[in-house]
C-alpha cells in the first residue's frame, strides 16, 4: 500500500495542469471558427476564386496543425519521432500534389 501513496501524488498534479480540458475546448472553438471562415469565403466571395482557393487551403492547414499538435499531443514532450514520421508523409504528399496540379 506504500505504493498507493507513492503513485497518487503525480496523478493529482497531472489532472491539475497537463490534462485540463481548456486547451482542447479552445482548439475545438478555433477549429469551428476556421471551418466557418472557409465556408463563409465560399458562400460570400464566389467570384474571387484567386483569393478564396489559397485562403481556404491555408485555413485547412492551420486547422490540421492545431489538431495534430493539441489533440494528437504532438506538442508534448517525447514526440520527435512521431513528428518526423508524419511530416515525412506530408513532404511526399506535397510532392504528389504539386505534380498532379502542374505536370499531369
Amino acid at each position, binding site marked *: 500500500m506504500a505504493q498507493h501513496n507513492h503513485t497518487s501524488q503525480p496523478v493529482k498534479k497531472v489532472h491539475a495542469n497537463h490534462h485540463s480540458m481548456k486547451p482542447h475546448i479552445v482548439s475545438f472553438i478555433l477549429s469551428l471558427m476556421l471551418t466557418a471562415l472557409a465556408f463563409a469565403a465560399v458562400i460570400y466571395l464566389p467570384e474571387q476564386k484567386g483569393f478564396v482557393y489559397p485562403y*481556404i487551403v491555408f485555413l485547412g492547414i492551420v486547422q490540421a496543425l492545431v489538431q495534430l499538435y493539441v489533440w494528437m499531443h504532438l506538442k508534448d514532450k517525447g514526440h520527435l519521432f512521431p513528428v518526423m514520421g508524419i511530416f515525412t508523409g506530408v513532404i511526399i504528399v506535397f510532392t504528389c500534389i504539386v505534380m*498532379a496540379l502542374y505536370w499531369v
Partner: protein
Amino acid sequence: MNHADHGVLPAEPEKATLEGRNKILGFWLFLGGETVLFGSLFATYLALRTQYVNGPAPHEIFQIELIALATFILLTSSLTSVFAIIGMHRQNFKMMLFWFWITVILGFAFLGLEIFEFVHYYHEGHTLSSSAYGSAFYTLVGFHGGHVLFGVLWISLLLIKNRKGLTVVNAPKFYVASLYWHFIDVVWVFIFTVVYLMGILGGQGGA
C-alpha cells in the same frame, strides 16, 4: 511492480510500458503512411477534377448545408475522443467509456449522412463509373468513409472487450484508437476544403 494487479495506474498509463510507447510510435509511422495514401488519392482527384464529361458537375450536386453538418459532426466526435483520453488520464474509467461511446455514435451519424449523400448522387447520375471525376471522387471520399467505418468498429470492439477497467495493457490500445480518430478528422478537413468547397466554387481549381 505490476500496476495492473494493484488497481493503481501510473499517471500516463498508455506510456507506462515499453510496449505501449512502441505501439504509439509505430502508430505514428503508420499515420505517416496513411498520409501518403490519402495524399496520392488527393493528387489523383486534383488531376481529374474537371473530367466529369456529361455527368453532373461538382457544383451542381454538392449541398453545402449537408457538408457543413457532416463537418460539424466529425469535428465534435474528435473533441469527444479527446474527452475520453482526458478521462483515461484522470483514471476515470466511466468518463472514458462514456465519451468513447459518444464518439462512436457521432461516427455512425457521419456515416449515415455520407450514405444518404452517395445515394442522392447516384440518382443524379454521379457514380463511380460515370466519369474519371466520379471514380476519383468516390475513391477518395469512399476511402475516408471506409476509415470512419473501420474506426467506429474498432473503437466499439475495444469498448466491448475492455469493460472491466483500465490497465497498462489496454490503455495504449485506447490511446492509439483516439489518435486514429483524430487523424480521420484531419483528413476530412482537407476533403471538405479541396473536394467540396473547391467543387462548389466551380471548375478550375489550383493557381
